[in-house]
């Protein structure tokens, strides 16, 4: 049949089963034995080949598609280019080597999976004794399968595979079947054979089994229901939120821009979980048992209407109506919903805390915030680890990866496909340029045709288009640039190097200086605004005016956040980074530093209460409101950015400059903005429990607005963007400075900042943390059976040594893992060496084979 008639290596069994490799001394002997063997086998091989070719003609051509592909392909003179001297017979043997048949031949695939299954089986159970000697060399075992004439047919192989599969557990078996690269028809044949052999007992495990009598008897009744259900399912599929939008984006812009939207979706999910927890345990209860003390200001519909339109009244609306609402900390009471379990509504709640204990709202508040942080932390760590696993081991400068993995099959629009082609082409040319040595004769021609350095590529895209037209001036300019680049990459003079370093240093100094300037500006500005506000209050000016002043600081901060990245882009243009990847990283670092430093300053102000919220009675509410305002401002600026950065810019480009160019979607900046918004949400979760809901709303709106703007205004990105790696970077950034920073801020607030005296669930306590302590004492008193709990609390949770031991254990685990990874790397190195050796062996054997044929040819 179609499996290759390979050479059975009857190497003396003793040396193999002893597990010893032949020493170099008898290597020559071994080689001659191979020679003998080849001589013996060659007649057999030829017979086998003929047989195979006949068989292959008869075999279903689906997998060979062109019957006798190898018979047709190999004797062609063109094919012989790699081994020009080889005769067609040896080439045929080459073509039927297992490593080559596996890529095209059904039989070979089946055998390979048979072997894999056998290996899997051996892992689960001890193999029978007769197989042990074969186990020693799986490759030899495969040879057995391939050559044994009794197992020659496809049918036989299938049977063998089924036999192997039967020895696995059902779940392993179905997974194996699933992951086989066979056609569905082939798989279903295998499955039928499997279920036939396995019998009804095992069948029972699958509740959906087609043979279950239940299924058959109800066929008539269920048909109608099923039709309805199926239609509903397919409806659900199409109506899945964002599914179609994501497909559209992927179809037009590829994975890079899609990664932004996927990131947005992840954030949405994180917020959803936080929101759900807070809603269920705090907000709903507070809403059901509202505090009667504060009468909210009358809420007129007009306020909401105008609030949605103008900023000033939005603030007023915010201040007036929202201050005493579920949105902010101050509204929540410190009541304990007593009367445990007697009145019906609490009955459902009280088992949550402890039996026969009242529902303590402050505690619930604290725990909900804590649990939502914990859940977020787990989800984040999980996604970080997953994305690390996906992106680990990737290397950048590999041409082969560029070629094999470059095509984004998601892209379906004709225009985008064309753009993708062009991008790949330029990338390949640039890469080529980087790889080739200057003395290479090929380079000269390559250079004259594709004089595109990375610097040029990122520097100006329009230049690229003029270059494709081969304008003379453009070509000259490009030659010049090329020379510059060449000299930079190869014979960089010391002076140039120094100049480049100085420019880099200057750029960084400028960037950091601007960050410092921004922070100082925000600091003094907030102090100034504080003075102004106090003056206004003293004068008793209108409420509207007072509220408007509150909005100024968020406005300034958001303005800085929007404008500074553009300054950094200018800096990047000036310093001309070598590779686009470094450029992206540098831009991300600078933006991140700016945002983090400003946030740290704001956090300091909030907690020290020196400037912001100093005069308020309920400073938590004030901080919550401030965060809410920052978030709203951030959203408004994101919208403005979309409007001006994308829509207006496109109109200018189209109408004024008359180019076909469109603005590109800046993924890095947009993702950083998302991270910033999320940080604000996390910072504010204690002060405004419903902030995740607001954030969710904001993200949803942003998703559709950004999508619409993208579809209308932008073109697909021209820079190479390693989507997987970049999303790893972003999720790590979300985890490390953003989430951990927010967690640190909140922990500090809970542990050592005194909550307000007159409002909120923690009024009258020294710190928020004390409420937990008090609860433990209450618990101990109320039920002496659970004193152990108090003991655990006192001795384990309050004790720092436990924390110390835990961190030691964590470090030990990390160290252990690092060592494991190092060991694996060494093994990989050794294996690579071994593969190289095997490759040499292979070449040697091929040559030997060839010489055998030569001799035979000469003899005959």
């Amino acid at each position: 049949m179609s499996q290759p008639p390979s050479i059975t290596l009857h190497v003396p069994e003793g040396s193999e089963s002893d597990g010893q490799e032949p020493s170099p001394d008898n290597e020559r002997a071994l080689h001659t034995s191979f020679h003998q063997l080849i001589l013996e086998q060659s007649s057999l091989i030829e017979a086998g080949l003929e047989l195979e070719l006949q068989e292959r003609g008869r075999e279903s051509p689906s997998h060979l598609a062109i019957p006798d592909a190898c018979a047709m392909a190999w004797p062609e003179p063109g094919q012989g280019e790699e081994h020009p001297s080889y005769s067609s017979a040896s080439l045929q043997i080459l073509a039927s080597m297992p490593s080559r048949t596996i890529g095209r031949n059904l039989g070979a695939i089946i055998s390979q999976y048979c072997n894999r299954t056998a290996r899997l089986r051996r892992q689960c159970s001890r193999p029978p004794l007769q197989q042990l000697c074969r186990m020693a060399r799986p490759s030899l075992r495969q040879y057995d399968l391939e050559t044994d004439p009794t197992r020659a047919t496809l049918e036989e192989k299938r049977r063998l595979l089924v036999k192997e599969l039967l020895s696995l557990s059902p779940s392993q078996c179905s997974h194996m079947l699933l992951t086989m690269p066979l056609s569905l028809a082939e798989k279903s044949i295998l499955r039928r054979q499997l279920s036939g052999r396995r019998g009804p007992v095992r069948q029972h495990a699958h509740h959906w089994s087609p043979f279950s009598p239940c299924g058959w008897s109800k066929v008539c009744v269920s048909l109608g229901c099923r039709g309805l259900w199926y239609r509903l399912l397919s409806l659900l599929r199409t109506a899945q939120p964002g599914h179609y939008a994501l497909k559209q984006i992927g179809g037009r812009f590829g994975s890079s821009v899609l990664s932004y939207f996927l990131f947005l979706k992840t954030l949405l999910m994180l917020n959803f979980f936080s929101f759900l927890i807070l809603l269920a345990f705090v907000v709903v209860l507070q809403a059901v048992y509202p505090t009667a003390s504060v009468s909210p200001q009358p809420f007129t519909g007009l306020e909401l209407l105008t609030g949605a339109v103008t900023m000033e009244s939005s603030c007023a609306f915010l201040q007036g109506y929202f201050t005493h609402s579920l949105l902010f900390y101050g509204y929540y009471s410190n009541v304990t919903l007593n009367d445990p379990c007697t009145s019906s509504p609490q009955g459902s709640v009280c088992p949550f805390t402890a039996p026969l204990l009242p529902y303590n709202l402050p505690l619930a508040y604290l725990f909900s915030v804590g649990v939502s942080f914990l859940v977020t932390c787990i989800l984040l760590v999980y996604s970080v680890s997953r994305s690390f696993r996906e992106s680990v081991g990737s290397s950048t400068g590999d041409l082969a990866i560029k070629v094999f993995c470059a095509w984004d099959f998601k892209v379906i629009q004709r225009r985008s496909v064309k753009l993708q082609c062009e991008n790949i082409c330029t990338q390949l040319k640039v890469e080529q340029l980087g790889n080739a040595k200057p003395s290479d004769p090929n380079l000269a021609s390559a250079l004259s045709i594709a004089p595109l350095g990375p610097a040029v590529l990122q520097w100006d895209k329009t230049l690229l288009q003029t270059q494709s037209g081969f304008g003379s001036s453009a070509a000259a300019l490009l030659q010049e640039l090329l020379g510059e680049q060449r000299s930079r990459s190869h014979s960089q003079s010391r002076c140039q190097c120094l100049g480049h370093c100085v420019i880099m240093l200057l750029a960084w100094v400028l960037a950091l200086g601007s960050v410092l300037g921004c922070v100082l500006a925000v600091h003094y500005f907030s102090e100034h605004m504080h003075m102004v506000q106090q003056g206004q209050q003293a004068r008793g000016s209108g409420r509207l005016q007072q509220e408007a002043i509150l909005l100024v600081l968020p406005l300034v901060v958001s303005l800085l956040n929007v404008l500074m990245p553009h300054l950094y882009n200018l800096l990047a243009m000036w310093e001309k980074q070598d590779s686009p990847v470094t450029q992206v990283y540098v831009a991300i670092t600078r933006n991140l530093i700016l945002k983090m430093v400003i946030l740290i300053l704001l956090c300091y102000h909030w907690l020290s209460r020196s400037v912001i919220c100093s005069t308020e009675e309920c400073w938590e509410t004030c901080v919550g409101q401030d965060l809410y305002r920052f978030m709203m401002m951030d959203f408004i600026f994101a919208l403005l950015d979309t409007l001006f950065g994308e829509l207006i810019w496109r109109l200018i480009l189209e109408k004024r400059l008359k180019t076909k160019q469109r603005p590109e979607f800046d993924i890095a900046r947009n993702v950083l903005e998302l991270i910033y918004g999320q940080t604000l949400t996390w910072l504010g979760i204690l002060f405004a429990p419903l902030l995740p809901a607001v954030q969710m709303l904001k993200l949803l709106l942003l998703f559709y607005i950004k999508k619409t703007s993208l579809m209308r205004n932008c073109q697909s990105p021209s820079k190479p963007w390693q989507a997987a790696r970049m999303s790893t970077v972003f999720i790590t950034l979300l985890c490390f400075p953003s989430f951990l920073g927010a967690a640190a801020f909140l922990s500090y607030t809970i542990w050592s900042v005194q909550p307000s005296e007159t409002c909120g669930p923690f009024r009258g306590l020294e710190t928020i943390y004390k409420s937990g302590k008090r609860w433990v004492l209450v618990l101990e008193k109320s039920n002496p059976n659970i004193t152990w709990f108090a003991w655990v609390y006192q001795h384990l949770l309050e004790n720092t040594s436990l924390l110390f031991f835990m961190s030691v254990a964590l470090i030990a685990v990390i160290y252990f893992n690092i060592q494991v990874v190092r060991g694996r790397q060494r093994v990989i190195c050794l294996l690579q060496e071994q593969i190289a050796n095997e490759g040499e062996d292979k070449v040697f054997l091929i040559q030997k084979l060839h010489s055998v044929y030569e001799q035979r040819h000469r003899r005959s």
Partner: protein
Amino acid sequence: MGGSASLIPRDLLSEYQELTFLSKQEILLAYKRFSELLPKEERENACSARVSKSQILTLPELRANPFQHQICHVFSTSESGDDSMSFEDFLDMLSVFSDSATSDIKSHYAFRIFDFDNDGILDRKDLEQLVNCLTGQGEESQLSSAEMEQLIQNILEESDIDKDGTINLSEFQHVVSRSPDFASSFKIVL
């Protein structure tokens, strides 16, 4: 909708669910899309009908793809070699290009798609054809022969581990496994 009258039998549906990486919803959607490709009178038994290659290539997901012919060729089980597709072939294709397919199976089929002459290895001709597909048909976007030569040489140097002048399946899978983007880009969403 003529296709809505006919349904996939329950046992077949469960079998497909077990043997492919698709969920029930995805299979149903695929069925709907597939029966839309068929002429009205054949929609009743869409499970056994075959759709011609030209018809398959009208799908928006494949229309602009430069590898469309190879994809049809690899997934078709047609006896006559006309690359027509049955519903099972169609499901096969979607399964391999789906979200949940393992990168192992994806790289296997990617290899077969890139293996233009179907001889089980990627040789220089295959690589040249592959690069031409990637860079498009336009005059200015084509690589010159010298560049092509150099490029192929570099690719072979990087990925031909056993130095036999060609890239076989395992070498290909080795290269592809180092790229984190492969699994996400080798995807077609219906």
